[in-house]
């Protein structure tokens, strides 16, 4: 599995989004291009989960709008991100169950009072496998 490549601007954007939403979980969509693909755009969306302190939901309409806009700019959706305001950046069981093949899931977590950003992808057996994060 290749790394998740993030521009430094993209990384800063999703960290800022996580900080702004704390104690709620933030969420959004990772958009990029290239081969291997690199995330150069972070689309922050509203968390539609009924209990946003304990989960996240991205509305289908937000996803549709992002896909449409990305295609017009010759980009594609590479994955999603959300935050764990009070726990490490490891996928929960709900995160695992909702993960789609081929997508990167970036999590901004809190570990020993420090923010960490890690990425995960769904493995062949449905398990979440960590994907190295490279910041360019």
């Amino acid at each position, binding site marked *: 599995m290749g790394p998740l490549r993030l521009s430094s601007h993209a990384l800063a954007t999703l960290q800022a989004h996580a900080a702004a939403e704390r104690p709620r979980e933030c969420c959004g969509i990772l958009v990029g291009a290239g081969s291997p693909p690199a995330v150069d755009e972070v689309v922050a969306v509203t968390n539609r989960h009924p209990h946003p302190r304990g989960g996240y939901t991205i509305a*289908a309409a937000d996803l549709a709008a992002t*896909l449409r806009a990305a295609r017009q700019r010759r980009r594609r959706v590479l994955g999603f991100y959300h935050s764990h305001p009070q726990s490490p950046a490891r996928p929960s069981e709900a995160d695992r169950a909702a993960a789609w093949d081929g*997508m990167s899931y970036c999590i901004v977590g809190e570990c020993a009072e420090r923010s960490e950003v890690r990425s995960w992808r769904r493995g062949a057996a449905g398990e979440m496998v960590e994907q190295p994060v490279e910041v360019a």
Partner: protein
Amino acid sequence: MTTAAPPAPSPLPELTVAELRRYGRHLVIPEVGPDGQRRLKGASVLLVGAGGLGSPLALYLAAAGVGRLGMVEFDQVDESNLQRQVLYGSADVGTPKLAAATARLAEVNPHVEVVPHAVRLTAANALELLAPYDVVADGSDNFAARYLVNDACALLGKPDVFGAVHRFEGQLSVFWAAEGPCYRCLFPEPPPPGLIPSCAEAGVLGVLPGIIGALQANEVIKLALGVGRPLVGRLLLFDALGTTFRELALRKDPDCPVCAPGARPELVDYEELCGSAPAPAGGDDGEAPWEIAPEELARWRGEGRDLQLLDVREPFEQAICSLQGARRVPLRQLPQRLAELDRQRPLVAYCHHGIRSARAVELLRREGFQAINLAGGIDAWSRQVDPSLPRY
């Protein structure tokens, strides 16, 4: 010596040692050099048609190291093609052109990625097909495709490297609405059906598409490199009998229906107008139709016909909208998940715009399924049958 060029990828891909060895004769040319070769490697070109013009185009672009070569072609190799379509040999007769072309090009240059699109270019799929590529080279043999390529390129702002051949005469130009005239500035509307004979009816000197196709490849390479003076605003005419070239200056039509300021073009399928459509339902051999229109599928469903619906999109697309009762198997998983489908029942496959599902239908038919593609995909369904489905 630079000129208008489609944007190059940034950063440019690096060259491997094997590629440095292979492209040595390019690397020593100052106008190419290592950076130019990297631009070629980073370039993507879509060839519409893999026939007489598409053959030299594909061979020379692959040999030159153009990184990504898409090919739109749904025909099979016929014995009568071999007189001019030098991508193919006698052993390929009866096989899909794309399969034979992919194998041949891998032999020519394994560093090039060939992307086969086994579909007919239509108004519904043209934008999605063309959008991922930097340059489009039109090697089609009919007016329907020619107008569609021009219109889609104008809408997307991409250069259309145009070539055409007829008996002993060839034409060449680069239609790039952003930089000059487009094909419609010359010929606003297609000719009526039957006025212009097809290649099969009129004949063509076998070497002629070789000459014009190679000149098209030259224009593509110049555009990718951003060097030289592309054939924008000029129409080159070649007469093989007199061995003469003539050049006509072309002007942008201020009233062009496609590229004039304020024009609001919509893509149209010109098959009926041009008289070049394939049989709408089944081929001459009585084969079942490959495509079904959304309205027709709606009628089938309304009648309660027994059929399977197969959604081959990715899960994140399926989350946005889907058709009720569809089984969801992304295209990339389809070969491993055929057992989930019923070979005895008719199957209609769909995706976003009908391109991935066309590939799925090809695969399924090879495996013995009665598969049909939903023309235009769920996007067309949303536009024509159920506007409540969100479009994306």
